[in-house]
């Protein structure tokens, strides 16, 4: 209760300052007061007046600590500056509890909107309902929420992580072309949502569309090239090189390790069916030189930029729908196209 009162006092103070400023110097007063009293701008559009300045919290699970986040942030910030959005970015480092606490902080500071990239998809419903109760709209970026939580969000923009696994599986199915083949699988960090979604996307699509492809062994590669390389090599030993016709890895960094493991065993990756996800600086050249048969383009700049674009559409009251990053399949045919130039 005390809180509400203090916020009220703040609002009055802001109003008074605006009046004073308007009385004195006509134009720049509004900007000054918006800056000085940024904390008190309320969800119900109090701050969004002439300049269309918005305060937005972006609750992300990664940032400058991961390759993807490092290239996701700059386009996001640039777009925000362009659209007049004042971004406050947090990074929970994939800790659900930290993100929940970040969410409380965000709700308490009453932004105009919250952009959420769930650290652990199953754990974010309380955050969504808290924002809902406070009247703060929430848009989702990068990894969508569970279907039952969807009604608490405005819209989603980003890649479909499940769909990426599925797309990679479709490439694999095409490569196999009905033959009975065996592959090894390298997954992301154990327990990580993206890792889980991609794994089930790949596996379920294989089961549905080409049951002739058998997953002989699977291990986590922790998104690392070296871990993936050793794990792949050990899986080759476990199931026998002669039984392996290919491999899938959940991202390009790890597939580079798998390919090195094959080369170290004198198995020519060009003869094997290998697919992955990412189309990164590491993966794209591997597609071009024929060792990686296909990958799925994930554009970090698209992702970061559209998170803000979507937020802006919600803030300006436009009708919005989910924005899906196209899951472009990158194979030898289009690897050198400028529109699939790698970004991270």
């Amino acid at each position, binding site marked *: 209760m005390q809180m509400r009162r203090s916020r009220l006092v703040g609002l009055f103070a802001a109003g008074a300052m605006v009046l004073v400023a308007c009385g004195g110097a006509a134009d720049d007063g509004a900007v000054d007061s918006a800056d000085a009293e940024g904390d008190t701008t309320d969800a119900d559009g109090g701050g969004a007046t002439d300049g269309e300045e918005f305060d937005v919290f972006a609750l992300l699970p990664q*940032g400058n600590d*991961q390759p993807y986040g490092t*290239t996701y942030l700059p386009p996001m910030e640039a777009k925000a500056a362009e659209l007049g959005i004042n971004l406050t970015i947090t990074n929970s480092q994939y800790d659900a509890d930290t993100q929940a606490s970040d969410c409380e902080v965000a709700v308490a500071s009453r932004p105009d909107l919250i952009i959420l990239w769930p650290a652990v998809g199953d754990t974010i419903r309380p955050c969504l309902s808290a924002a809902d109760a406070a009247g703060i709209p929430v848009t989702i970026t990068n990894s969508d929420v569970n279907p039952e939580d969807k009604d608490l969000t405005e819209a989603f923009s980003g890649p479909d992580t499940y769909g990426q696994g599925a797309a990679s599986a479709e490439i694999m199915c095409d490569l196999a072309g009905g033959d009975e083949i065996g592959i090894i699988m390298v997954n992301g960090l154990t327990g990580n949502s993206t890792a889980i979604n991609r794994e089930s996307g790949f596996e379920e699509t294989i089961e549905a569309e080409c049951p002739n492809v058998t997953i002989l*062994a699977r291990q986590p590669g922790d*998104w690392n090239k070296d871990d993936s390389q*050793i794990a792949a090599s*050990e899986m080759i030993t*476990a199931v026998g090189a002669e039984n392996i016709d290919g491999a899938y890895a959940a991202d390009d960094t790890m597939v580079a390790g798998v390919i090195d493991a094959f080369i170290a065993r004198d198995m020519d990756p060009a003869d094997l069916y290998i697919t992955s996800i990412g189309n990164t600086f590491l993966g794209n050249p591997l597609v071009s030189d024929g060792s990686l048969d296909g990958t799925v383009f994930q554009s970090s700049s698209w992702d970061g930029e559209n998170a803000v674009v979507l937020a802006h559409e919600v803030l300006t009251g436009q009708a919005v729908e989910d924005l899906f990053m196209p899951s472009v399949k990158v194979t030898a045919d289009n690897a050198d196209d400028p529109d699939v130039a790698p970004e991270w």
Partner: protein
Amino acid sequence: MTNDTSTGTVSAPKPAALEEKLEEQAFKLSAWMANQGIFIFTAALILFAAVFIDGFVSLPNITDVFNRAAPIGIVAAGMTFVVISGNYLDLSVVAQVATAGVVLIAVSNETSIPVAMLVAVVIALAYGLVNGVAVGVFKANAVIVTLSTTFIGLGLLRWATGGSIYFGPSDGAIRAFGATRIGPLPLAMILFVVVTLILSFVLTRTTFGFMVRSFGSNREATRLSGVSTPWVVIGAFTVTSLAAMLGGFVLAAFSNTAVSAMSDGYDFRALAAIIVGGTSVFGGRGSVLRTLLGVVFVSVLTNIMVLSGLGFGIQQMAIGLLIVLAVSVDALARKATGA
């Protein structure tokens, strides 16, 4: 009051202090037993794997075991110095390994490998100095000091590089080092053995090594005997830092890539290998060669579990059990001989 006059970080719990006089006789026997223990464990495990696990005894698989062992082994061999000096562990190896790896690849891409190595050496010395001064001079707790240098170090690395992946040219010298083998042995493994032998020599045959060991077993006596203890601690942390740097080089060279998250978990994994090898976490007792055995043991175990298709959860559980078991055997043996 007594607590204040003694140095702030004496780690040996009281029962161990009481046993100290028995230590002399018990030491040889228990050391022998512990050594035999890890040796027998390792031999039994390898025998088991050779019989029951298909493909365990094959050239490529042995290479895999060595590739698993080399980077963490070099880090653990160096960290043995901090453990033996009675300062628990160096958590900041996580930051150090990643920094060394990223510096090696990122700086050599811009300039040349020698320059990159020089930069990495300077950084390693800085880590050794900061950790060592805080622990040795200010007598601050090693766990918290190295925890804070981890935060600072990883923060600086990410601030400077972001989380970007760096990779070297595919025909470069770093790549060549990572891929070269002599017979079944990766060059990295040979480096690991050489580093272990050198560090073992330093620990057992040099004055500095003697001071580290005696400081770990009884730091007050070491201080009174006129040895300048801060330098011993700074030295132990510097050895660890240089080894962590080499470990970072090896890890980066193996995959020809480097990223700031590449060494997650190296702190406790290195400590686990040291402990499984039989080095006492009280300080004083232990050797670099035991760490070598511990690293090989953990690598073989992980290799067996991956070959058997066991999941990550089971692997973690087994490593946890193993640590407790290995140390329990040692503790019970010591109890039996001490009684």
